[in-house]
């Protein structure tokens, strides 16, 4: 059933190229969020729970880094990964891995900053009880991360939103190579500059639909979890 709107055709035909782009976009952004979270959740909790010289500066830096310009991160990662760069030997430039690294760098400060705030608020509430229960520091961090898990999900979603919407960094380090590093956002940028606005708009709508779906799934998981654990 062909229509006049190209992207509807692509979706209806489950166009393999479109599916590959969607799959890559999701995989890159989710992997970036996972990598960033592995680092940023403990880091945010650590900053929340410890007092050290330069802590205020660290918090300001984290909050500032939330607004890192993607093209700047892309450029920095490009320089690191390029053949003549310090990490050039790994041959990662213009690969999905390079895109994951760039997005992880963009997302980590968001997750760390939001985690810091969330954990610090919860700590104010919990500190007496945990001190009275003689809970060791590492265990405290685990307790707070676990008990704040529903709020932290929002931090992860903020990170995912940033990653999935981002084009500046992935286009620089990925190169928008068809069938290899082309994502939804880079495809939209390309189609727009080529003048194929209907396809660009269509791809944009598909991207937004996917982001809505991911957020809906996360929210559903949160509600179900809250019903069970409060």
């Amino acid at each position, binding site marked *: 059933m062909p229509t006049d709107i190209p992207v509807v055709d692509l979706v209806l035909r489950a166009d393999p190229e479109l599916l590959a782009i969607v799959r890559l976009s999701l995989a890159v952004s989710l992997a970036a969020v996972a990598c960033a979270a592995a680092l940023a959740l403990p880091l945010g909790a650590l900053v929340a729970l410890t007092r050290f010289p330069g802590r205020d500066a660290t918090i300001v830096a984290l909050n500032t880094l939330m607004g890192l310009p993607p093209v700047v991160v892309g450029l920095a990662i490009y320089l690191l990964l390029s053949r003549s760069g310090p990490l050039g030997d790994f041959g990662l430039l213009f690969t999905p891995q390079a895109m994951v690294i760039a997005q992880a760098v963009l997302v980590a400060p968001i997750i760390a900053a939001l985690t810091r705030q969330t954990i610090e608020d919860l700590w104010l*509430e*919990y500190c*007496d*009880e945990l*001190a*009275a*229960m*003689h*809970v060791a520091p590492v*265990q405290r961090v685990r*307790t707070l991360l676990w*008990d*704040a898990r*529903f709020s932290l999900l929002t931090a992860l979603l903020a990170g995912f939103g940033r990653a999935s919407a981002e084009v500046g960094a992935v286009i620089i380090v990925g190169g928008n190579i068809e069938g290899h590093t082309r994502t939804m956002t880079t495809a939209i940028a390309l189609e727009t500059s080529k003048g194929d606005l209907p396809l660009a708009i269509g791809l944009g709508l598909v991207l937004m639909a996917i982001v809505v779906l991911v957020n809906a799934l996360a929210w559903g998981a949160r509600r179900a979890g*809250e*019903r*069970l*654990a*409060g």
Partner: protein
Amino acid sequence: MMRAPGSDLPIELADARYHVRGSVILDGISLVLGEGPPTVLIGPNGSGKTTLLRMLMGLIAPTDGAVTWGGRRNAPPVRRAIVFQRPVMLRRSVSANLVYALSSAGVARAARPRRVAELLELVGLLALAARPARGLSGGEQQRLALARALARDPQVLFLDEPTASLDPAATKAIEDLIRTVAERGIKVVMSTHDLGEARRLAGEILLLHRGRIVERGPAEAFFAAPRTDEGRRFLAGELLI
């Protein structure tokens, strides 16, 4: 299981002071608390009851003076437990709150389910085991907090106004539990602003005023005939300022 050697009792304060930014909260308190019937702290708001309980628990250190537990200065709160005036429920189920307390007290994993059941039975929350703890009523939360404190198998249990803002039925449930706990040989040290409650539970009374102990003695004697002017005025319902 990690257990510090020795007993936490007696707890001894030697001329303990506590001040925060120039304002004196506790002003030279010397006190020995050993085994025995419940010790009830009374006194007007701001007299230092909560601060004294926190110091006895080891949550704050005196600015001057010393606290020792069974003669030891740095005794981690292994066999002491406290129920705060507003206990914080972990964002977990009722039974998971107890499992957490048991594991933090070093109780072996295999022994936990039985202990959870015992504790829930004791405080009458068995039917609510799977519910989110934060959804409980005030009285139920207070009972869970008590169970969580008992999970540490304490020698001494501190309670900070455990029935404040509870209705009479919930208050009775808590007071009955405190009596049970005391009968099991756990030293209870609690504060209250309710003289009726002090009468019902106290073995001895400790009257605080302006960060000092103004009177200490067996409850019966105190309520029959306080020895100090402050004691008489406090019992008569006058405002101690």
